[in-house]
């Protein structure tokens, strides 16, 4: 059995050798987080639909269980082992339900391998991973608005100021100049002592910085055929789109428009809850959107993103009008227009294909997608925010143009 001798290797100094420990642990932590990010990317499909995340904001740290990072080993099905506890209680008394385990409730605390790995990651990082995995291109602002923010730039010097802004180099240079002029500078003994008049301080000026702003229009068909499941899909998809766009702009406004045969604006909370019962006229939503753009969001200042979700069951005569608004008002003004069609038992799903047929190839900024179920949300996001214009695949009309 070959075992190398310890070759006199001694633990480094710092009584217990702790001095370089920080570097070592950081190396190991970095490697672990890399692996975690890899796992998250592999499992994005699942994380995307995690409803606990939906509704949070940027710097929020979320704790997500990351399976498959645990090193597998031979172990029991711990659920069937049970354990030993201490305290009051009758036979049959419930201690806790599966899934409610807290820190102290793991078999008996001194047992091996019982903890699922949970990692903390900020929502921002998660969105970043989403972008990487789906290869989403960075959004380019089209316009920089007049809204300016002013940033202080420390470019100038003055003679008075707070000590924290003292500019040492200049101070000493000034002192040197003075001493040389007055002849008190000695080459042999080059000591410089600044006096109060020598002190120099950094000073700043405000410089205007152009700011890019964005507005997102979320439009949704809330007619009878859009059920809770469909709305949930829309909610999740809209959330991630919103998160992605936020990463590119400082100020992001969101407007929510619902429609059946008529359209109106609603607050965010209502957007996902409303159910109307009328027929469907998609053009109503597009017209309202166009109106808002005209009134509040001049394209010289705003980057406009619009998304419409529906089950594709539009009133046939309305198609032409909807296309006209799209063609003349919306597509020429927006950075991106995305149409996402959810699947519904009662809808024909016709609109998607009609849209594709009508506009295919004409507009770079039109994106189409189907969202057949929660599992397809990831693909839908890629279709809507991804690189290629993609109406081609949807051009085919369905077999029988049936309902």
């Amino acid at each position, binding site marked *: 059995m070959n075992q190398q001798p310890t070759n006199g290797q001694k633990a480094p100094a710092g009584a217990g050798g702790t001095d370089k420990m920080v570097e070592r642990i950081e190396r190991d932590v970095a490697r672990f987080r890399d692996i975690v990010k890899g796992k998250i990317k592999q499992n994005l499909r699942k994380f995307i639909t995690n409803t606990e995340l939906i509704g949070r904001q940027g710097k929020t740290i979320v704790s997500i269980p990351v399976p498959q990072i645990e090193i597998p080993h031979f172990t029991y099905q711990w659920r069937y082992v049970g354990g030993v506890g201490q*305290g009051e209680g009758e036979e049959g008394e419930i201690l806790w339900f599966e899934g409610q385990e807290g820190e102290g409730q793991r078999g008996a605390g001194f047992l091996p391998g019982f903890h699922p790995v949970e990692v903390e990651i900020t929502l921002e990082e998660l969105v970043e991973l989403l972008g990487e995995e789906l290869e989403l291109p960075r959004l380019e602002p089209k316009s920089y608005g007049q809204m300016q923010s002013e940033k202080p730039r420390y470019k100038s010097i003055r003679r008075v100021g707070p000590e924290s802004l003292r500019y040492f180099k200049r101070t000493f240079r000034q002192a040197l100049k003075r001493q040389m002029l007055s002849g008190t500078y000695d080459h042999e003994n080059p000591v410089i002592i600044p006096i109060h008049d020598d002190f120099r301080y950094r000073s700043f000026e405000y410089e205007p910085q152009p700011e890019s702003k964005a507005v997102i229009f979320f439009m949704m068909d809330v007619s009878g055929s859009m059920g809770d499941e469909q709305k949930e899909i829309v909610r999740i998809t809209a959330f991630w789109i919103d998160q992605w766009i936020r990463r590119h702009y400082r100020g992001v406004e969101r407007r929510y428009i619902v429609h059946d045969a008529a359209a109106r604006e609603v607050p965010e909370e209502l957007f996902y809850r409303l159910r109307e019962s009328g027929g469907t006229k998609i053009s109503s939503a597009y017209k309202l959107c166009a109106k808002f753009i005209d009134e509040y969001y001049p394209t010289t200042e705003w980057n406009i993103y619009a998304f419409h979700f529906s089950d594709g069951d539009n009133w046939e005569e309305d198609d032409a009008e909807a296309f006209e608004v799209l063609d003349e008002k919306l597509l020429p003004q927006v950075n991106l227009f995305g149409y996402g069609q959810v699947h519904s038992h009662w809808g024909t799903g016709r609109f998607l294909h009609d849209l594709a047929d009508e506009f295919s190839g004409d507009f770079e900024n039109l994106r189409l997608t189907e969202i057949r179920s929660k599992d397809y949300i990831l693909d839908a996001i890629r279709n809507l925010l991804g690189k290629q214009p993609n109406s081609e695949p949807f051009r085919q009309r369905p077999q029988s143009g049936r309902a």
Partner: protein
Amino acid sequence: MSLPAELEQARKEIEAIAREYGLDFFPLVFELVSYKQMNQLAAYTGFPIRYPHWRWGMEYERVRKSYTYGLQVIHEMVINNNPCYAYLLSSNTLLEHKIVMAHVCAHSDFFKNNQWFAHTNRKMLDEMANHSVRIQRYIERYGWERVESFIDICLSIEDMIDYHAVHVKRYPPEEEDGEDPEAPVLTVPKLPSKSYLDKWVNPPEFLEELRRIRQRKKQERRKFPSRPEKDLLLFLIQHAPIEEWQRDILAMIREESYYFAPQAMTKILNEGWASFWHSKIMTERVLKDSEVIDYADHHAAVTAAAPGMLNPYKLGLELLRDIKERWDKGRFGKEYEECDDLAMKEAWDKNLGLGMAKLFEVRRVHNDVTFIDTFLTEEFVRKHKLFVYEFNRYTGAYEISSRDFETVKQKLLFLLTNCGHPIIWVMDGNYHNRGELYLWHQHEGIDLRWDFAIETLKNIHSLWKRPVHLETVKSRRKVRLSIYDRDRFQEEVL
């Protein structure tokens, strides 16, 4: 880096008191560390240097979120080494430092005197640094991906050692005698005889019979190991077709597992011992009146448990105190056990004063399993309201299932046996005479977690490079899990 004067003073004081009480420990070296460093040390299981691997990063992230600096955690902050290094949290008060120091004295005494630690490497701090250096060299030479993947596999089986072999030599002599198992037996030893008598002393039939016996024994020996083995790591080190650098890494990991094994086997006892002594030292000798309340708060926090939950470290302390009382009062032995007058039992006090001596003996001899097996009594279980809980699949809840003494004891023993790992034996390294590896799970009522079992077996396969099999019981049926290659595995009901 030496301690500030105040702490150095405290250290001398506490160590002197501990020695007065009879504690016997290696020289202690305390180091003050920050909260962050404490977390890092905890991730590294008490050693400031470990080989590079993401598992430490994972542990650090976990520790960072759930850390409580209760004394149960000090256990990991004292290392079994000579000198014995221990870490003090710089934000602690002087009182807290003293408690920790007393606690550490007892831990170190335990490491030094408990027989299960007798063969541990007391220069492990250096050894860990050495392992780290060796592995880093391999990383430089073979690339970190290859090395990391290999270590991942090793870690998958790092607990597959023989826990009861901790107190015997760890490198048994080679079982093979160097003979080529394939070669037929050509010669046999003859009985000594003069040449002219040879035909009668060693008749041809006799020689032939001997040769046949030897051949058969050789066939039998083709099944190796000759006895079922628990130390899978050693088996793989000796027989798996892996490269030398891999063999070396596997050996290092095995080395570390054996080093930690006694600690894993004596957690309850060790923690109970240390708590017993820090409590005794503080209350009898160190605490000033003004500090008593702070101490009581601290102690209460440490020995608290979530309602219904068992604090395993408290269990050790309570059991030791129980033993002390029993041996002081003579509540042991035939006479006591056969007495069935409850009132008499409760008043029993022969004033033997043997408690302290008994405790020292217990700390020398026992591990958690023998400790519980020997000293857990029905009275204790009742007094401390211990119970067994189980999962009820109909309600999806964990429920109290029994307070019966035997049941509680058996459950505790099960949880502690083999440190909570399933017992898996290496049965045959030449299964089917085709060099296949055959493992057997000694099933004791609980099934294996199946997804892990498959992955772990695949890992073993990647080392063995020929088919590997695991025989176990699943849903009450005997099952053999076989891995033929990376993607092909099979479950067969036997």
